[in-house]
């Protein structure tokens, strides 16, 4: 019993000592923050009634970043691209080559995986528009029955050019699931914050299921045989109806980002001698 007692004391002491940054009652206590997004702040809002049919219209709150599943094995081409990417997670921001370091567009599908504090759906004749709080960008999702363009990025004169946010078409499956298929995303964009790459052959399927009035689930499936050895679901995330139907303005401002790199990003990353 003494052994058990000793073990308990040591284990708990070790845990408390090492976790003291989190739980220490003595001052100063590190801050582990509060809600970092409206979704977390809203908490459990309840179902809010049944989901309307064929309707995603409105403002929705999501997490800052979706929880991502591991990517499958990459092809040799994918591995080579990945090797060239220096993410913010592994390198100081000053040394990374993440495209958004200079406020380049997140592009699709990264914009539905990261900086997803707020999204909006609205409809126009023949299309649904999906907008994002971050950088206030939008995507046209055609619902008039047209097919996705072929040979995006090809050399023929009528081949469409790649786009930061690709080409999207959508349709309803049943009353509550809106399915969006996208091709033509510019391969300069990264798939995620870790720097996983994608090619011009990327095809993405998003399935937005309105579970009830207040909750929207989205599943994002990646199919890029040039980069990954098999298709995979990269995330299944959730959005919550925003009662006020409004959200913050959130932009990446190039001039302010440049000042940030000068005042903080660069000094934080290197010693006085620049090493």
């Amino acid at each position, binding site marked *: 019993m003494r052994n058990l007692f000793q073990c308990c004391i040591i284990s708990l002491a070790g845990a408390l000592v090492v976790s003291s940054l989190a*739980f220490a009652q003595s001052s*100063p206590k590190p*801050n582990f*923050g509060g809600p*970092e*997004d409206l979704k977390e702040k809203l908490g459990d809002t309840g179902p809010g009634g049944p989901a309307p049919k064929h309707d995603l219209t409105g403002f929705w709150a999501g997490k800052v*970043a979706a929880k991502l599943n591991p990517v499958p094995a990459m092809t040799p081409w994918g591995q080579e691209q990945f090797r060239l990417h220096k993410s913010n*997670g592994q390198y100081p921001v000053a040394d990374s080559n993440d495209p958004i370091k200079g406020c380049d567009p997140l592009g699709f599908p990264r914009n539905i995986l990261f900086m997803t504090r707020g999204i909006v759906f609205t409809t126009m004749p023949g299309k649904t528009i999906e907008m994002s709080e971050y950088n206030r960008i939008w995507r046209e999702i055609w619902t008039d029955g047209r097919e996705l363009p072929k040979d995006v990025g090809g050399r023929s004169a009528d081949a469409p050019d790649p786009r930061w946010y690709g080409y999207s078409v959508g349709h309803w499956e049943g009353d509550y699931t809106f399915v969006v298929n996208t091709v033509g995303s510019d391969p300069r964009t990264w798939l995620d914050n870790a720097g996983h790459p994608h090619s011009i052959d990327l095809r993405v399927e998003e399935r937005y299921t309105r579970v009830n009035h207040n909750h929207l689930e989205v599943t994002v499936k990646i199919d890029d045989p040039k980069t990954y050895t098999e298709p995979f679901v990269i995330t299944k995330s959730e959005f919550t109806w925003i009662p006020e139907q409004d959200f913050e303005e*959130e932009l990446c401002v190039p001039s302010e980002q440049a000042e940030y790199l000068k005042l903080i990003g660069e000094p934080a990353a290197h010693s006085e001698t620049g090493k």
Partner: protein
Amino acid sequence: MEWCWLASVRPQQFSRGRPLPFRAAARFRGRLSKLRMSLALLGVLLAVGVPAFAHHGSASYKTDKVVVMKQATVTRFLWANPHTMLMFDAKDDKGNISHWAGEAGSPAAVRSLGWNKNSLHPGDVITVQLYPSKFERRVGRLDKIVLADGTTLKDSPRSDLGVLSRY
């Protein structure tokens, strides 16, 4: 100087313990051993897991030490996207002034924590708590700020993902 380091994180070690004195108790040794392993695992999970989920993520900054500077004076506050920035002066015991810069989350991130564009003004005297650069520069990721009236402005936490969100 009016700043201090919080305790650095160190891996704990577990004692093997003394032999049990009685045979009856010894029959429970296997069970106790499993319990001990579970407790040890709990300790490790707490030790590793809590900081991993709790701190801002940034490859530039230490995550196991926090600098606290009292009686710091705001020199500039930038309500900027994608990162809020704070410039301030800290004074040591001899009156020497050092210039510091700290970053926080985006305005959209910290607004939900009570900040706004007018939260800080040049001349404000505050307490600053931040995670310093690994390179000993006077730059850091803010942890929290305490205003003269006692109001605490926390910075946004890092994402709970494997990759480190700085937004």
